[in-house]
């Protein structure tokens, strides 16, 4: 009897320990939120940046850009995302951001429809929602920052390939999946540019790597084997870029078959160095992070009565009274200046959809594509 009681007591102690463990686990969790440091006189606003997932160099580059300007913009900044690309994971995060009374949520959507209800709930709660890189349904965001115009990046890739292989060559495209929205748009833009400019350039096939490096590798090898006349392969998805370069290197075609794609240079340094990669196009991810934060401030100001921005405002170092705002309910284009975060030039917010550039309503096109070549790839860390 006595022993049984000791036994129970011990159990009790262990249960207590378990409770303590959970409590400790809950309290010792670390946050990486930078401390708010507002510029003089400017009301601090809470802005969250939610990419598709954590740990991808391009999204970290966005974060780096954002962090470099949040102080001047009076933003208390938070970078948070699911550990793996998951639309449900993003929804959980959005819900928690609403509970934490964030002023602006910026996101790159894992899925265009799944987060719609929660983002509409956020907008109803007075939160400004800005998507960048990958858009959600238009009804679930205020503004969208499109990386680059579809036609210009397509032109960049095709021009580079023609310069390498000539205007009469056979080329192949390596994409992700047959239904990937942005890749489809790029392929469409490439085709129409080829038809208009290089009528003798021939796209012999389109391979699909399923956004998987190994699949991309075997698909690209298949293309090289079955189309011996192919002079250039154009991979337009992150995994396809790496897989194609690997295939070209593995089959000893480096320099004979050109690889020109859409992707970030950091994961491909090796292939630039060994000559199996000739050119990549992307946008400046660091700059895009800065623009995202600037638009967060402007959207907040716009919703709180600031005068409308013009091509000249906000100025480079605005005082609290010089801030302007952007709004979604205008039926005409709006303009604002990027100088406050050190971005050159004026940005325009499209009032209606544009088929050529791919812009939808209330979309800002961030920049012209940036070209990475064997001579400049080392300068970029994304």
């Amino acid at each position: 009897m006595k022993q049984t009681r000791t036994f129970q007591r011990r159990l009790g102690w262990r249960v207590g320990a378990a409770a303590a463990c959970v409590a400790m686990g809950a309290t010792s969790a670390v946050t990486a939120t930078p401390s708010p440091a507002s510029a003089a006189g400017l009301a601090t606003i809470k802005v969250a940046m939610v990419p598709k997932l954590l740990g991808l160099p391009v999204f970290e580059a966005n974060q780096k850009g954002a962090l470099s300007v949040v102080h001047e913009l009076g933003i208390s900044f938070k970078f948070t995302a699911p550990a793996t690309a998951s639309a449900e994971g993003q929804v959980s995060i959005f819900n928690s951001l609403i509970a934490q009374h964030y002023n602006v949520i910026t996101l790159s959507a894992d899925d265009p429809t799944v987060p719609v209800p929660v983002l509409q709930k956020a907008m109803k709660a007075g939160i400004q929602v800005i998507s960048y890189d990958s858009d959600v349904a238009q009804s679930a965001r205020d503004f969208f920052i499109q990386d680059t115009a579809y036609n210009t990046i397509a032109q960049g890739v095709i021009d580079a390939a023609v310069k390498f292989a000539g205007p009469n060559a056979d080329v192949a495209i390596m994409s992700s999946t047959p239904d990937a929205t942005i890749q489809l748009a790029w392929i469409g833009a490439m085709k129409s540019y080829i038809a208009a400019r290089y009528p003798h350039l021939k796209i012999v096939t389109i391979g699909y790597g399923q956004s998987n490096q190994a699949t991309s590798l075997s698909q690209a090898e298949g293309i090289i084997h079955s189309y011996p006349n192919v002079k250039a392969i154009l991979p337009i998805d992150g995994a396809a870029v790496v897989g194609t370069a690997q295939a070209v290197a593995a089959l000893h075609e480096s320099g004979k078959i050109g690889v020109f794609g859409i992707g970030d240079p950091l994961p491909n340094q090796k292939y630039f160095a060994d000559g199996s990669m000739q050119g990549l196009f992307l946008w400046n991810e660091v700059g895009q992070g800065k623009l995202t934060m600037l638009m967060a401030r402007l959207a907040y100001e716009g919703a709180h009565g600031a005068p409308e921005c013009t091509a000249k405002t906000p100025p480079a170092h605005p005082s609290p009274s010089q801030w302007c705002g952007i709004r979604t309910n205008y039926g005409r284009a709006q303009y604002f200046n990027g100088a406050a975060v050190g971005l050159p030039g004026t940005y325009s917010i499209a009032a209606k959809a544009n088929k050529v550039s791919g812009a939808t309503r209330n979309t800002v096109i961030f920049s012209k594509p940036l070209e990475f070549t064997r001579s400049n790839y080392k300068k970029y860390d994304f």
Partner: protein
Amino acid sequence: MSTTPVSSAKPGASQARSKTAGRQETIWTVALAALLVVLLAYFYLAVPDFRSLGTSGVLALCEQFLFTGLIALGEAVVVLAGEIDLSTGAMSSLSGILMASLWQQGLNIWLATVLALFAAALGGALNGFLVTRFNVSSLLVTLGTQFIFGSVATAVGGNTPPYNFPRSFVTLVGTGTVGPVPDQLLVFAVVAVAAWLLVARTRYGRSLVLIGYNRAASRYSGIDVRRSLLWAFVASGLLAGMAGIFVSGYYNAARDDIGDSLLLPAITVVVLGGVDIFGGRGRMSGVILATFLLGFLTQGLLIRGDSSLTATMVTGVVLVLCLVLKVALDHRAWAQLRELLRHRVSGMGELRAGRGA
């Protein structure tokens, strides 16, 4: 050492063991309930944003983890019987896609829901059939059917799976409330009570646990093991299908991979709930409590401002700690028991020896 207790002590030992096991299960359940209270109190007192949600806001948090709970309830039934169902996540996706696609074809959405649930139960029956008929490990069978269900979902859903369901549907199964209580919570309560009654209060439930505990013995005692297992898989499939309907309602969109991320959390809930992963031990009440414990832990940490990475990590730490603790408890129980028996046996000897001296 463990062979020292004489054979005559065995029946007594097994009786004592099941009693200790029962006691342990009670203690585990009470501990989970206590932890849940501690956790909610902590978040309420220490996290202002959590407090400012109010009752309805805190209850609304449930909408984000009750899908996992539904799957866990079905999974627990299978695990109790000593099997596992890895196809539940894919089944959720499939049932959501089926419901959405049938609706898109012009069918009434509620009829589509019933058909999708029927298909989910049928999928569960397929699992059960393969496992019991061909005596293949359920781990392998459901690993396989997982891919089948997932691919069918992708094939049926197509490139852009349907979204934007009728308002009444989204309200009732997704985000609707009765007063401050989400509809989902009400449905979950009904299902949870039913599952609890099934396991704890019916002959079928007890036979399932016995099957998990000792299959040969259950066969000898006249239980139709095959049929019982088949129905366990049907229950698992049906509940996974139900979870799929709720997920689709909550997100107002179907997606062919939406259930993938639910499987592992559901199994985590089952194990944290105190169900022995090898079957034969555990309670539904523990699984129900673990659903809320894990759910509120994750949501609370997110609202506290932690990254989802931290939340996932803390979940992992809690799970491992709990399991280590549980195993330690088990060993302790065994050791105590042995000690008790040894004392009794050798104590007599000592007594006699003492007298002799």
